[in-house]
Structure formats: structure tokens, C-alpha cells
């Protein structure tokens, strides 16, 4: 088992190395399959122990402050999933090497598949919900890259993106759900949650946590109304579809529901929400499948349906239903994986996946046809294949549920669809009448036909000896759900039961529809097309479009490019916030006692106010400069009058320099124009007044509070004795607060550098930009 704990690390390393290994060992690179095979073998060795009820566990801290630990746990449920992941993974690597033979990015394919497999193993082995989330998102992202593997196709990019966004949104909801559970139980460990399910159920946040996690599971497992991404994901290379989008990744959601079954199944919402969601997906998927003509899309929709059935039975929640869900899970992985690989072989061997064209390839592709036949029989639920046992269990579980007639009826409809599709995908291309086009079917190399054949054969083997999985896999897995040992007895023959009758009925109807396919299909297709614009698949682009147009609208409104709107909203925001604060947190506002102002004050302030008023209305540049200068000089005199001679001196000098600067520069600028309308001006004036009033009010509010500065006294007392200076202001500038001055002269230096660079570099650039010297005036 030590190997298993390192497998995650090894997997990530191997994923990184795969392209290099592929480049080095080009033809033998399928040997990478040895890695999953080793894991598979290791897992097989663990079966007896796990079946005996032992769970293997290991835990290392990772980010304990957030509750994330590297804790892995192998129990019955994890074992089933891990076996599927590693076993089918090995086959897919072998198959993929042949399928993508000569593809320039085969190395990247290996890398991504191994990465995905590692992540998926991580999902099913994690006992820590955050760790599970880490791997969960890793599967999403590797799925993104694999769906978009043929990234030169716009469809592939769009499908990859859709899958990522749909599963990503569910993932985020799930993370929120996990965090809620952690808030309730103070732990992210799943086994801890299971141990404290009573506390969780009693907590008012439990339903919210459940629904959030369900959103994650439902998006991943393509449940209605999130199912639409899965058929679109068929843009992926076929081995990817087989592996990710039927056998393993889409089952992550099922796995999660099963894993949290002991936590949430006591919730009133559980049966209600999950069964109805599963049922809609189950029936809807099967009926939608009937409208398809592409092999992979047919398989995709039936996958949706099968996933729906697993969810549905988990929702029913009886011991029988739980066992059923697990058996369906295994059976489906085997037959659907095989059928996808077969679809790849057909595509490879004939160049098409269109079932209306395909036919009669069986003779040229005997191995593929055999695999297809066996897997198809399992899918249709015909004895002695594993699918038959699954189907019998399904009927048995619905018959004993509440509302047996309704549930069984709907299940029957779905299963009939399954049979029909099984006929179309596994018999028509091989033994049906060929279409008009001349295909040259041929069998690919063994690496292509062997993996599906193996999977199909397993369906047969396990169908014949169902107790192999019943005892060793299903029972321990069911125990993980039920948290108590359950006996599982699977057998082919139950005697003449109602279930057998239903099976026979399903078969009859299914074969009928299958045969009538070409005539029925156009009608079904029309029906779904008519409905399509109301479906969730249409909702996705529509909502995306809505979000994007809102985003565009918002951005043009906010980021309009008009500086005055920017300034205006900043001022307005400030005023509003200040007013709000004054309203909510009233401050004392006292007008200071009015002493009769001195004559000079009145004159100076009069000059400042008049000049300020005039400068806003000035039309000539010269007047503007003069007015500004008069404001500046008046302020300087004000400084002088109120005991700030240094300040006055600097203000005088700076004012002079500024005026010179303006004269130097301003005469190059254009004359003033009247650009704004009267209404704009009025609005601006109002806003400006509000700003001005705010600042005055602030000054008055603050000065109402009389606090003396204790800095002043210290400076006055230490200026001469400690700093050897009699001019306190200057001592502050060069000594007490010399650091400010250091920054200040730095600003000056940068400004000068800026002026220089701006003028000179632009001049150089300008010369570059000049038109050829034809019409210069010089």
C-alpha cells in the first residue's frame, strides 16, 4: 500500500516526464501503461483486506491552518473506483498510443491522461474534502485540455470551455458547501463528517451545504440541468471520451454522492431532490439519445441517462437501491468504455461515425464487432452479461419503492431507449445494411481492438460469475455507504419474477424501436429541436451572452473615457459618503466665534475670492496667469501676516517660477474655447459647490475641537539647545523632519527628470513619426 500513497506523486512526476519519454522511446511509449497496471495490481492485492472491512489510511499535514491534509483512505467504495480508474486507464493509454499514432501531440496526450488518472485516483482516495477538491479541480482542468486536444478546431475549444465553466461553477459551489460543513464540524475530514452526521443534520446550515455540494456533483456527473456539456465534450479524441466522459470522471459526482451518503441521506431534501434530478436525467438522457446519429453522441446521451439512473438509485436510498447503483456503476463503466473504444475503432477503420451511413463492417472488423456485440448486449441488459443483472436489480429496486408504478414505468421508458441505442451502436454498423457511401472498413492494430474486447469480455465474465464482484467489490462498497456490513448476492437467475417480465418487455420494445430507427428518428429529432430553445443547453449561451453584454455595458458606462465623468463621480462619491457619515454619525458643528477681522485680512481674502471667481470665467490665457499669480501672491502675504515668513518667501519664489513656467509653456497651448453646454456647467457648478461646502464644513467641524499640538512645544524647546537652530521651521525641515525633506527633494528631482525626458524623448519619437520630408516649411 505504500506504493499507492506514492502513486499520486509518481503520477504527477510521470505526467511531467511523459512527453520527454515519448520523444525518447517513440514507439514503445505505450509502456507508460505499466504505471496504471502496477497500481491496478496493487489494488487487486488489497481486495481481500478491504472486503474484510479494513480500510487503509494514511495522513500527512499539508496546510493544517486551513484544514487541508494529505489524508488518503482506501475503503470499498474507493477501491471500486480506483480499480476502474487504473484498469481502464491502462487500456486507454495503450489504445490512445495507437489511436493517435503519429499525432504531433501524442506526448502531451500521455501527459494529460496520466495527470488526469492521478487526479482521479486522488479524488476517490482522499479522505480530506479539500484534498478531494484539489484533485477534483485537477480532473476538470485536465478534462479541459483533453476536450480541447484538437485545439485548432473552434468547436473543440468551445466544448472544452463549456465543460470547464459548467463543472468549474459546480466545483466552486461544492467548495462553499465543504466550507460550510467545516464550519459546522470544525474539520474537513470526510470520515469525521460521517462520524458527526447527527450534528450536521441538526444544524440549520445543513440543507445549504447539501445543495451546494450537490451542485458540484450534478455538474460533474452531467445531471439535468447541467447535462449538456457532456455530449458537446465528444469533441475530445475518442479514448478521452471513453475514459473521462463515460468510465471515470463523470462518475466523480456519483462517487461524491455515494461518499456523502452516510452524511446527508438522513436529510429530508435528499430523496426528494436527488431522485427527481436522477429521474429526469435518466429518462431525458435516453430520449435525447434517440435523436442522435453520431456514434459518440449516442453513447454520450446514454451515458447521461446511465448517470441519471445511478443518482436516482442513490436518492431512493434503500439497501437494494444502493447496491443497484453500485452494480450499474461497474456494469456501465465496462460496457460503455468498451463501446466508446469501439466507436473509435469504427471511426479509425471507416472514417465516419454516422450510423446512417455505417453498416456491414463486421466482416472486415471481426474483433471490433465482437467487442461491440458483447458490450451492446450488456448495455441492452441481456443475459448472461453484467448489464442484465444490473437491469434486474433496477426493476427490483423501483418495484419496492414508493410509487412503484410511476417509477418503474419511467425506468422502462429509459431502458427501452437504452436497448434501442445499443442496437444502433453495436449491431447496425457491423451487421446492418451499409449506407450509400462506399466505406473501406478495416481492422486496426491489436492495440485498438484488444482493449474494447477485453472490457466487453469482462462484462461477460462478470455476468456469468456475478459473485466475483458481488462479494469482493459491491459488498464492501455498499458497506462504505451504509456504514454497516451488507450482504450482496448477485445471480443471473432469480426465477420467474416480475423483473424478468419487465426485462423481456424492455427488450421487445427496444428491439422494435431499434429496427424502426431510420423511420422514427427524424420525428424525434424534430421534437427535440422544437424543445431545444427552452432547454438548459440554450440557457448556457444565453446566460453567458447576458453576462457578457452586461459586462460590456457596465464597462462602457463606467470606463467611458470622459475624464470629467471620472472626476465627477469621485467627487460625488466623496460627498455622498461624507453626507452619509454625517447623517449616521452626526458630528458637532460649531461656528467659531467671529472676531472682527482685520483690515488686511479682509482685503487679502477679498482679492483671493474675486480672483478665484474671475479665474473660473477667464477667457484669455494672460488674464488667467495674472489672476492665478494674484491669488498666489495674496496667499504669500497672508502667510507673512500670520507669522510664517519662511513660507511667504518660498511661496513668493515658487509663485514667480510657476508664472514663468506658465508663460514659457502656455503660449504654446490653444486659446480657450467654450466647450461645455450650459446644463453641464450648471451641473458641474453644483457638484463643485458641494465639494467646497464639504471641505469648509470639515474644517469647521474639526476646528470646533480644540486640541493643542504637543509636537510644537517640544520643537520650540529643543530647537536651539538640541538642534542648534533658532529658526524652528527650518530646523524642522532639515533636522526634526529632515526625512520629509529628503523625500521632497527627490520629488523635485524626479519632476525635473520627467520634464526633460518627456520633452526630449517625445521630440526624438516625433522625428521618427514624421512623414517623409516633402512638405516641410523650413
Amino acid at each position: 500500500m505504500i506504493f499507492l500513497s506514492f502513486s499520486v506523486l509518481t503520477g504527477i512526476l510521470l505526467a511531467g516526464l511523459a512527453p520527454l519519454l515519448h520523444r525518447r522511446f517513440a514507439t514503445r511509449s505505450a509502456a507508460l501503461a505499466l504505471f496504471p497496471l502496477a497500481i491496478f495490481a496493487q489494488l487487486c492485492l488489497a481486495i481481500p483486506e478491504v472486503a474484510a472491512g479494513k480500510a487503509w489510511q494514511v495522513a500527512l499535514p499539508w496546510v493544517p491552518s486551513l484544514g487541508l491534509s494529505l489524508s488518503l483512505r482506501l475503503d470499498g467504495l474507493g477501491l471500486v473506483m480506483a480499480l476502474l480508474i487504473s484498469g481502464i486507464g491502462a487500456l486507454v493509454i495503450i489504445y490512445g498510443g495507437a489511436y493517435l499514432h503519429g499525432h504531433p501531440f501524442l506526448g502531451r496526450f500521455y501527459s494529460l491522461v496520466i495527470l488526469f488518472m492521478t487526479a482521479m485516483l486522488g479524488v476517490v482516495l482522499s479522505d480530506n474534502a479539500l484534498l478531494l477538491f484539489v484533485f477534483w479541480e485537477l480532473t476538470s482542468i485536465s478534462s479541459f485540455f483533453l476536450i480541447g486536444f484538437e485545439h485548432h478546431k473552434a468547436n473543440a475549444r468551445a466544448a472544452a470551455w463549456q465543460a470547464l465553466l459548467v463543472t468549474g461553477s459546480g466545483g466552486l459551489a461544492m467548495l462553499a458547501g465543504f466550507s460550510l460543513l467545516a464550519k459546522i464540524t470544525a474539520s474537513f475530514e470526510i470520515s469525521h463528517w460521517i462520524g458527526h452526521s447527527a450534528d450536521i443534520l441538526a444544524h440549520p446550515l445543513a440543507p445549504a451545504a447539501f445543495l451546494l455540494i450537490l451542485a458540484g456533483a450534478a455538474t460533474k456527473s452531467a445531471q439535468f440541468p447541467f447535462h449538456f456539456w457532456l455530449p458537446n465534450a465528444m469533441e475530445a479524441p475518442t479514448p478521452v471520451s471513453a475514459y473521462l466522459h463515460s468510465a471515470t470522471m463523470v462518475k466523480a459526482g456519483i462517487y461524491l454522492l455515494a461518499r456523502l451518503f452516510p452524511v446527508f441521506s438522513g436529510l429530508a431534501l435528499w430523496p426528494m431532490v436527488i431522485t427527481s434530478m436522477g429521474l429526469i436525467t435518466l429518462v431525458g438522457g435516453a430520449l435525447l439519445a434517440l435523436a442522435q446519429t453520431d456514434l459518440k453522441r449516442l453513447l454520450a446521451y446514454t451515458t447521461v441517462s446511465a448517470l441519471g439512473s445511478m443518482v436516482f438509485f442513490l436518492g431512493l436510498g434503500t439497501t437494494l437501491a444502493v447496491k443497484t447503483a453500485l452494480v450499474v456503476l461497474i456494469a456501465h463503466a465496462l460496457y460503455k468504455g468498451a463501446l466508446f473504444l469501439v466507436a473509435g475503432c469504427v471511426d479509425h477503420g471507416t472514417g465516419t461515425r454516422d450510423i446512417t451511413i455505417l453498416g456491414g463492417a463486421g466482416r472486415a472488423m471481426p474483433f471490433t464487432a465482437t467487442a461491440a456485440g458483447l458490450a451492446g448486449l450488456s448495455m441492452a441488459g441481456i443475459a448472461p452479461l453484467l448489464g442484465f443483472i444490473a437491469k434486474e436489480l433496477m426493476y427490483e429496486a423501483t418495484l419496492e419503492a414508493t410509487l412503484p408504478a410511476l417509477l418503474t414505468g419511467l425506468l422502462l421508458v429509459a431502458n427501452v431507449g437504452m436497448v434501442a441505442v445499443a442496437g444502433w451502436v453495436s449491431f447496425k454498423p457491423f451487421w446492418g445494411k451499409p449506407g450509400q457511401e462506399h466505406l473501406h472498413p478495416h481492422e486496426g492494430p491489436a492495440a485498438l481492438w484488444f482493449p474494447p474486447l477485453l472490457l466487453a469480455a469482462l462484462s461477460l465474465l462478470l455476468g456469468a460469475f456475478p459473485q466475483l464482484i458481488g462479494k469482493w467489490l459491491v459488498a464492501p462498497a455498499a458497506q462504505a455507504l451504509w456504514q454497516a456490513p451488507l450482504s450482496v448476492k448477485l445471480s443471473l437467475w432469480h426465477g420467474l419474477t416480475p423483473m424478468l417480465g419487465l426485462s423481456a418487455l424492455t427488450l421487445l420494445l427496444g428491439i422494435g424501436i431499434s429496427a424502426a430507427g431510420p423511420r422514427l428518428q427524424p420525428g424525434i429529432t424534430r421534437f427535440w429541436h422544437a424543445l431545444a430553445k427552452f432547454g438548459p443547453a440554450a440557457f448556457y449561451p444565453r446566460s453567458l451572452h447576458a453576462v457578457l453584454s452586461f459586462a460590456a455595458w457596465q464597462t462602457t458606462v463606467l470606463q467611458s473615457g470622459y475624464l470629467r465623468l471620472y472626476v465627477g463621480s469621485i467627487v460625488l462619491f466623496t460627498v455622498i459618503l461624507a453626507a452619509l457619515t454625517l447623517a449616521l454619525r452626526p458630528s458637532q458643528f460649531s461656528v467659531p466665534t467671529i472676531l472682527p477681522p482685520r483690515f488686511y485680512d479682509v482685503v487679502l481674502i477679498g482679492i483671493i475670492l474675486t480672483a478665484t471667481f474671475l479665474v473660473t470665467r477667464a477667457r484669455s490665457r494672460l488674464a488667467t496667469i495674472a489672476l492665478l499669480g494674484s491669488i498666489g501672491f495674496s496667499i504669500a502675504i497672508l502667510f507673512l501676516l500670520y507669522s510664517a515668513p519662511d513660507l511667504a518667501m518660498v511661496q513668493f519664489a515658487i509663485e514667480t517660477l510657476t508664472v514663468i513656467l506658465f508663460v514659457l509653456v502656455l503660449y504654446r497651448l490653444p486659446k480657450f474655447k467654450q466647450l461645455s453646454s450650459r446644463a453641464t456647467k450648471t451641473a458641474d457648478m453644483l457638484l463643485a459647490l458641494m465639494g467646497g461646502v464639504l471641505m469648509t464644513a470639515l474644517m469647521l467641524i474639526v476646528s470646533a475641537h480644540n486640541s493643542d499640538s504637543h509636537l510644537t512645544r517640544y520643537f520650540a524647546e529643543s530647537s536651539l539647545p538640541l538642534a542648534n537652530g533658532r529658526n524652528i521651521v527650518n530646523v524642522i525641515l532639515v533636522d526634526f523632519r529632515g526625512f520629509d525633506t529628503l523625500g521632497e527633494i527627490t520629488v523635485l528631482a524626479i519632476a525635473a527628470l520627467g520634464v526633460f525626458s518627456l520633452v526630449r524623448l517625445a521630440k526624438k519619437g516625433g522625428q521618427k513619426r514624421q512623414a517623409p520630408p516633402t512638405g516641410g516649411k523650413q
Partner: protein
Amino acid sequence: MIALPILSPLLFGILNLLAWRSARLQKALSLAGGAVQLGVALWLLHTVQQSGIQHLQVGNWPAPFGISLVMDLFSAILVSVAAVIALVVAAYSQAGIDAPRVQFGYYPLFFLLLMGVNGAFITGDLFNLYVWFEVMLMASFVMLALGGERPQIEGAIKYLILNLLSSTLFLSAVGLLYNLGGTLNMADLALRLPKLEQGNQVTLIAILFLVAFGIKSAIFPLFFWLPASYHTPPVTVTALFSGLLTKVGVYALFRVFTLLFVQDTAYTHALILVIAGFTMVTGVFGAAAQTDFRRLLSFHIISQIGYLLMGLGLFSQPALAASIYFMVHVILAKTSLFLVAGIVEKLDGSFNLKELGGIYRTRFGVALLFLLPALSLAGLPPLSGFFAKLALIVAGFELQQYSIVAVGLAVSLMTLYSMTKVWNEAFWKEPQQSTHHPAHKPISAWLWAPTAALVLLSLLAGMLAEPLLGLANQAAAQLADPSIYIQAVLGAVP
């Protein structure tokens, strides 16, 4: 000596000014300066972590009379990250900045900008903070406009005017606060403000600070200057700005709203939380509407600022810690993305997503350099962005602020959307112009090596989430209890 992170860039700035004529000497000096800076910063970080808040009175005048320099863990972390960014960008600049710009003062500006940034991080005096803000702003004005291309100066005008507005507001607020508290030393203010009878006046001034720093840190609805200007200078400059400038605004917000304005958190911090939500959403929507690589990234800066504010608005120690970690994450990731955008532009000659394409096929390395920080920004595990967001979510749930968490998650999805949009367009799509052969264009090692180093660091920030979060938590503990800071500056509190 905690003044070193300010003085060493000043020295290198002056040296570069004196070495005006020799581009080669300036380039060498810039690398040396970056390395020195990083060494000093890491040493100080170590010191602060070992022996607590470091404090220095400039000119040996006792607090609160002289100017205090204070380095708590939060400052030390930011100074260190700034030094990392400085070194990386200094290296990237060797090939990423054209000769005329070097000739006209790029390197002196680079160091003086860094000086301003570090000054703002370290000072413990409110007016001194204003001065450093101005140093930083002035340098950024010039760097933004340096080159004088049309979009540059157009953007620079808006940047300049809006930032001057913010500076004015800041200075006014300092003046008003001096009137109220009679001191400029932040620790002293923190001591005196709670004792004032008129607490509501303090709240009112707090709002002014919120707006003034809010403009600098580009929060909603004050962020206009950022998308208007950030995409206009050479991408090297944008990378530097994105890593440092807005973060200084956020730092200032954190400083004043954890130290000075903590009397009325039910009002001020609730307000910050609301603003945080709007900032996230408007930023990410802005990004979704873009087709230009750099503009898209610029809008994402805004949205990420929202996350940073979320921690401040939640105002608990774990939330503050989450924000601090987030800040480290976002500085590393966002700067790397801008640097990668620069490489992409060098390869494909454009920033327009519609004109880009094919880089994944031909330049897997570049694609990987984009992918890692991009997914990190989108919050994909186990990258640093995931831990940052998770920490915020957990902190938000802890305080039962479910709506802001929901907003944060939704914005995370939108981030994933726009990052994968860039991926689809620039990397997956086939090249749009047959004349471009990205495969054959050489990329200078000065471009890719610093970028790769930064991406690696960003990866490490995810791998080492636990120690980093621990550090952030220590820093947050200092922020959450102002008396630690006050005591470090003023000695025993009377």
C-alpha cells in the same frame, strides 16, 4: 537598519542619475541594486520575524516628535515582495525596455519609484507617508509618460489628474487629523484618537482617508485611472506598477483602518466590505469585456483589489491573514502575467487577442508560463490563489458574511472565464497572420528567465502555503492588536 530599503534605492537612483550617459553601467547597476534590495529586505524580514516589530527614529528625535520608521511583519512582507518584483523587473528590463527609454532616465525612475514604495511601507508617520506617496506618484507619472507615445500621454493625463485629486484629499485629511489629534505620528494618533470626545469626527475623517487611499488602490467607484492608463506604457512598466502601486494604496488602507480608525468598525468596515464586493464584480466584468491582453489584466487588478479589501472589511485576524497572503499571491501572479504578456507581444507582435494565436502549439514553455499564474489567479488548486481564496472564504463563513463569500466565488468563476478566454485566443487558436512565425523568433533569456523565476516563486507560494499563511497570520496578529504597534513605537503605553 530599517531605513535601508528606502536609502539603498535612493543611492542606486542617484548613481544611475550620475551614470546618465552609460546605458550599460545603468543596467548593471540596476541588477546590483535589485539584488542588494532583496538581500536587505529578506534580512529585515528575518529580523522582524525573530525579534518583533523594528522601530527607528530618524535623526534620533524621540517619538512622536521625530519621524518614526516602523517595520512590523506586514511591512516586512510587503517590502520583501516588492524587492522580489524589483529584482525580477530589473532583470526583465535588460531586454524589455528599449534603448531610448534607458537613455532618458528609466533606471533612475525605477529606483526612485521603489524608494517611494518602500518609504510608504515603512514609515510610521502620516505626513511622511504623504511624502513617500508623492515620490512614488511622481516617479510613476514619469515612467508612465516616458516615451511620449500617444496612448501613453493620453493615459498619463488621466492618471495624473485623478491621482493628484487623491493626493490632495489625502493631504487635506492629514491636515484635518492633525487639527484633531495634534500629532502626525501614527502610533501617537492611535493612542490619542480613541480618547477624543468626538469619535464621530474621527469617523468622518476616516471616510476621507478611505476615498483618498481608495483612489490609489483603485476600488469601486474610484478606479477609473487604472484601466485608462495601465496598458499604455511598455509592459515592463505595467508589470512593475501592477505589482507595487495599487498595493501601496491597499497597504495604506490596511494600516489606517487597523491602527487608527478602529473605533467604529460597525460602520467603516461594513462600508469597506460593501465596496470590496462591488470592486470585485465591476473589475471582473470589466475584464470580461476586454479583447486586449493587457487591458484585460488591468481590469483584473481591480477585481483582485476587491478580494484584498474583503479581508479588511471582514476585520478578523484570520481574514486579515488571508488578505496578506492574498496580497503576496496576487503580486507574484499578476506581475508574472504581465511579463508573459510582454513575451507574447514580442512573439506575435500584438496584445490584441483577436490577432494572437498558436503559441501553445509552437511555444509550450511560454504557454506554461502563462497557464500557471493564470490558473492561480482563477483560484485553481493547488496554486496559491486557491489557498488565498479559501482562507478568505473560511474567514467569511466564520463571521457569517455569506453574501460576500458568494460574490467572491462568483467572481472567481468569472476570473476563470477570462483567463481561459486568453488561453483559447492567444494560445490555442491557430495563428491569425500567416506572416508571423512565432516559432522562429528568439526570445531573449533576459525576458523568459526572470518570468520563469517569478512563476516558480508563485508556484512555491502555493506549495509553501502553510509557512506563508503562518507568517501572514503572525502579521495579522500584529495588525489586529494596535497596542503592539503603539508599544513598539512609543515604548510603554501610559
